[in-house]
């Protein structure tokens, strides 16, 4: 007998947590020189403001277990998550800029015995960036040692628990979850160097979740306890190539690899090793920017590396993104 429950069920919490983790590292917009090779919602030196809209389609292809071995999702299951991200970036002066990203999350879940669609606001993130360089560092030719100087960005970010989490008032099952339920403070370091037509970036982030009290789980009252998720580490490197057309519009193809991990968390102060996660992925980005760099259009494919030990206790997902940015004064 097959029961089809079309109750408000959605993607499980962990699947969502994976996507939110990756999403915050993959909100791509501009770069130091503009043109779309960058790996954060960021303004070029000459830009004042930016509005960004992106659609992520994330599909699930099994998971890595505790031992890092790949496991298939149950037969007959089809899991997907869609995220519509609205972003805004503003430049305060030559060195300081800030950005805000608000995701709207749609969970589409299908198992042999359960199907569900649910949507809601995800966790909002905000980042303040400091640029440790005076002028644009993109060059066509190296004439002196100073031409090799990269663009260096330092970032301080916060993720707000605005989504529906397992510990809030709204989610009743893991499928309803659209947020993790924890504040997180991130520090970012990004190095970028463009020697046309090539661009290389290196990005690292370290995130610390804040401990919080929990007195309910999926709407069920439980004995209160304190929980903290594990520290988050994100490393990514990329290589891009830019073509110019006769009107100086650009097309940039970028390949990147990334490593994302979360360490042990805590439960009432005791170490919780079951919070550990790991995911390694590769991505390709094709970005088109107008000569005036006021419009940037991107297509991104992020592919989880499928091999054993490329992840741990984490879903194996691919993310397809279409993104449009508009830069204005």
């Amino acid at each position, binding site marked *: 007998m097959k*029961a089809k*429950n079309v109750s408000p069920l959605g993607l499980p919490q962990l699947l969502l947590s994976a996507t939110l983790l990756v999403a915050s590292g993959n909100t791509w917009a501009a770069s130091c020189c503009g043109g779309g090779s960058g790996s954060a919602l960021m303004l070029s030196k000459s830009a004042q403001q930016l509005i960004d809209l992106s659609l992520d389609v994330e599909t699930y292809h099994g998971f890595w277990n505790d031992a890092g071995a790949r496991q298939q999702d149950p037969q007959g299951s089809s899991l997907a998550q869609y995220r519509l991200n609205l972003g805004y970036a503003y430049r305060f002066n030559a060195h300081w800029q800030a950005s805000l990203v608000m995701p709207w999350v749609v969970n589409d879940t299908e198992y042999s015995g*359960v199907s569900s669609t649910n949507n809601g606001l995800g966790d909002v993130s905000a980042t303040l960036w400091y640029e440790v360089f005076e002028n644009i560092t993109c060059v066509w030719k190296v004439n002196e040692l100073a031409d090799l100087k990269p663009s260096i960005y330092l970032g301080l970010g916060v993720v707000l628990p605005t989504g529906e989490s397992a510990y809030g008032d709204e989610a009743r099952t893991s499928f309803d979850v659209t947020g993790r339920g924890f504040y997180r403070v991130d520090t970012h370091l990004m190095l970028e160097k463009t020697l046309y037509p090539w661009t290389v970036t290196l990005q690292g982030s370290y995130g610390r979740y804040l401990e919080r009290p929990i007195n309910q789980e999926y709407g069920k009252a439980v004995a209160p306890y304190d929980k903290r998720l594990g520290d988050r580490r994100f490393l990514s490197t990329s290589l891009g190539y830019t073509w110019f057309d006769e009107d100086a519009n650009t097309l940039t193809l970028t390949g990147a690899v990334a490593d994302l991990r979360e360490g042990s968390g805590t439960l009432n102060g005791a170490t919780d090793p079951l919070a550990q996660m790991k995911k390694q992925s590769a991505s390709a980005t094709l970005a088109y920017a107008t000569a005036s760099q006021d419009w940037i259009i991107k297509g991104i494919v992020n592919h989880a590396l499928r091999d054993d030990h490329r992840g741990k206790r984490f879903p194996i997902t691919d993310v397809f993104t279409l993104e449009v940015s508009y830069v204005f004064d």
Partner: protein
Amino acid sequence: MCLIKRNLLLLLFCLSGCSSDLLPSDKDIRTSQVDEQKVSFRLQTTQGELLESQTLLESADALVLYFTMWCPVCDSHMSQLSRQFIPVYGNMRFVVVDYVSGSVSQSLEAQRASGFLGMTIGVDLDNEVTRTFRGTMATVVVINKEGRLLLNEDYKDGARLKQVLDGLL
């Protein structure tokens, strides 16, 4: 510029509503430590057996249910149950509730693929057990010999489950 920033902030507050995650509370909102209402249910196992809670409790000191959807978290917890709980609490009966497969054959296939053939998997064909306990991913339930609910919450690291089961020894 100011208009855009103001509107974005307004939109954020409107969309997030009064999320309790923004201001989490440590207040104990439980109405009772133990649910006095007796519970009973039936589950079909992947081995073709029909499990009845009352029958199970005649031969066990307690019944432990764990809700799985064959996910990474569930996999971790089931490994821990299999290694650290089932061999230790021999007088308790452990049943993993599959609430997503919808059929015994699909559930057996998932059980086989994930390497948990040694565990008892109960398939919640009509979602009755899931509704009864409001079960979801990683929910763990403990029912004592009298049929009363002692625990119904997320498994987390298993410490709470251990505490409750130790109390029954």
